[in-house]
């Protein structure tokens, strides 16, 4: 079972790399597709890619870490972004952030051990009129009160199969 799974990751990487072979600036395009497929760039995949493209792993990581877009860690099933932009901050976003941390028992930039939630503090989600704002995957929650956080998270926790 394990080896078929491994093969398939390898084949997927090969297929993606193959599409962009010998094209200038292909590394970024390939990494985009990898992240689209896996949700992040797993180390195993980066190592495979390095061999497949004959590009040093050092170069791959230099690119991944240069751009904020690329992720090296597995995202959660639900990614929580707590806005810490100016408006949200003034409206008490740090208390919201603390509440999420306490409830999930994780810090910023961490994922819960069950892989359900990942928490990030971000700068401005672009809807300051709704401050303070949190975003879970693509859904925005505006004018959030500290007391509501538990209720919001509970709805997602229910989805845990």
């Amino acid at each position: 079972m394990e080896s078929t799974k491994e093969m398939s990751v390898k084949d997927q990487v090969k297929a993606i790399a193959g599409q962009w072979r010998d094209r200038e600036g292909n590394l970024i395009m390939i990494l985009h597709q990898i992240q689209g497929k896996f949700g992040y760039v797993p180390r195993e995949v980066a190592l495979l890619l390095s061999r497949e493209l004959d590009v040093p792993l050092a170069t791959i990581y230099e690119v991944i870490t240069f751009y904020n877009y690329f992720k090296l860690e597995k995202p959660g099933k639900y990614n929580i972004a707590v806005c810490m932009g100016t408006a949200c901050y003034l409206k008490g976003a740090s208390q919201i952030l603390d509440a999420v941390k306490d409830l999930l028992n994780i810090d910023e930039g961490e994922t819960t051990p069950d892989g359900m939630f990942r928490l990030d503090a971000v700068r401005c989600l672009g809807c300051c009129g709704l401050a303070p704002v949190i975003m879970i995957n693509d859904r925005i929650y505006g004018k959030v009160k500290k007391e509501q956080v538990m209720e919001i998270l509970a709805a997602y926790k229910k989805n845990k199969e």
Partner: protein
Amino acid sequence: MVKARINGITVKVPEGTTILDAAHKVQIKIPTLCKHPDLRATGACGVCIVKIKGSQKMVRACCTPLEENMEITTHDPEIVAVRRSVIELILSRHPNECLTCGRNQNCELQKLASDFGVRRESFPQYLPDIKPDTSTGTIVLEPRKCISCGRCITVCQEMQNVWALSMLERGIDTRISPAGDISLADSPCVNCGQCSAHCPTGAIFENDETAKVWQALQDENKYCIVEIAPAVRVAIGEAFGLPLGQNCTGKLYTALRRMGFEAVFDTNFGADVTIVEEAHEFVERFVHKKGALPLITSCCPAWVDFMEKFYPDMIEHFSSCKSPHQIVGVLSKTYYARKKRLDPANAYVVSVMPCTAKKYEIKRSGEMFASGHQDIDVSITTRELGRMIKQAGIDFASLPDEESDHILGEYSGAGTIFGVTGGVMEAALRTAYDYITGGKLKNIDFENVRGLAGVKEGAVPVGSHTVKVAVAHGLRNVEAVLSKVRLAKARGEEPPYHFIEVMACPGGCVGGGGQPYGVTDELRVKRGKGLYKDDEAHTMRYSHENPWVKKVYQDFLGEPLGTKAKELLHAAYKARPEYKK
């Protein structure tokens, strides 16, 4: 040619010459920090900015070519003020720990801050919280002290083609690290230490093991033995203001004896033994067709590590002979210990090397314990020895010369040139010529394997044969040589070479990663010349004619490549992963 004026002085230089180099030609020193003569300019730091008449902005002299009729100003109050601000900004991200830093008084940033009279912290300090990486035991990475100049990256990626180090993140979070924040020991790092030799600050430095040596010297139960590598003798003088490239062999022996070593040996003896074994290996393969050709030298541990990681298909080509310092180590704890009626468990062998990778080599495989103990207990670099001599209160520059201790300190001229690129090849050819033809060479100086060209090739007539050789130094130059070998193997053709020498560091060991700071090609040549002079000064210039080497074979080792020699003087290699994680 391009003609222009710098500070009013007319200068004519070839097209493409940078403003920095052109200014140098007319005795103007533009300060630099990230630029190193060995490396291409990256323009990372901004200390070398100058003004061009008619242009609003200041440009970086290190990476701006001089153009026809340019009028350059390199120094005025505004330029100096900008440079000082650049230095102050760099200092705002650099810990104020000069007094306890390994680069104290040797630091290029410290020197600039001193030259520019920086007297205050003009910007609030921001120091990243990154722990030092001591995983290799050879070099220490201390990213907190990194100023993001990029030299180590260029060294690791371009000069050495190892790609262990990368520059991760960006902006204020920029940091040096192996890909993915693994430890250096889990990365492809081959411990060559060239990054530490090129780092302008204390962000990468050798793992200081001088305390272990002092402790052993204080221990009454230990019998302390020391050996010095060829390249150390022509570089240690730099730590004491002696002329560049001066051969300090005699002073070194004296200093080591005064520090308390009971036996002062010379790695050059081991080099002579290496040549006897390796030349026999060559004859076996070349004349008797037993074993793969080309034969590739293996005395450089960084090169061995590189081969095991990147060219494991070349393992059959490697000489199985150990490096000279390991040979002196194992003979110290076997032959010498027996002669002295000394329990090898109480013998403590220190090797002084121009090299950080030797710290790795002493434990790299089971064969490094051939005496039944760890053959070399600790390996220190030339830089570490320089500090120890100072701590011991020895006025090195004024020391009288002494002799090494018998027998493992006696060497031939061929042994001493191991320390410079092409030297091992030259020494081996002298001996192999004799073995194959039974005669002596008319001219034993092989000029075409000398010098600093990255790859040197030659065809040497040996009796009715022609021996085709290649010498590469600086690991980026390996590819050109080995790809030809791979191609010939794949096609089933005659090998393009019969014998290949590789040294990981540019210039060979004289430019080693553990040598005194400030290496340039000019310095490599001077140190190399010191070794060639040492060779010429010897009446004995063939390793196999070293009477003391012969005696050790007669009394103890038996035949070259014989059972005992194989057991003590040879090692095996294995493929190793580039990344352990």
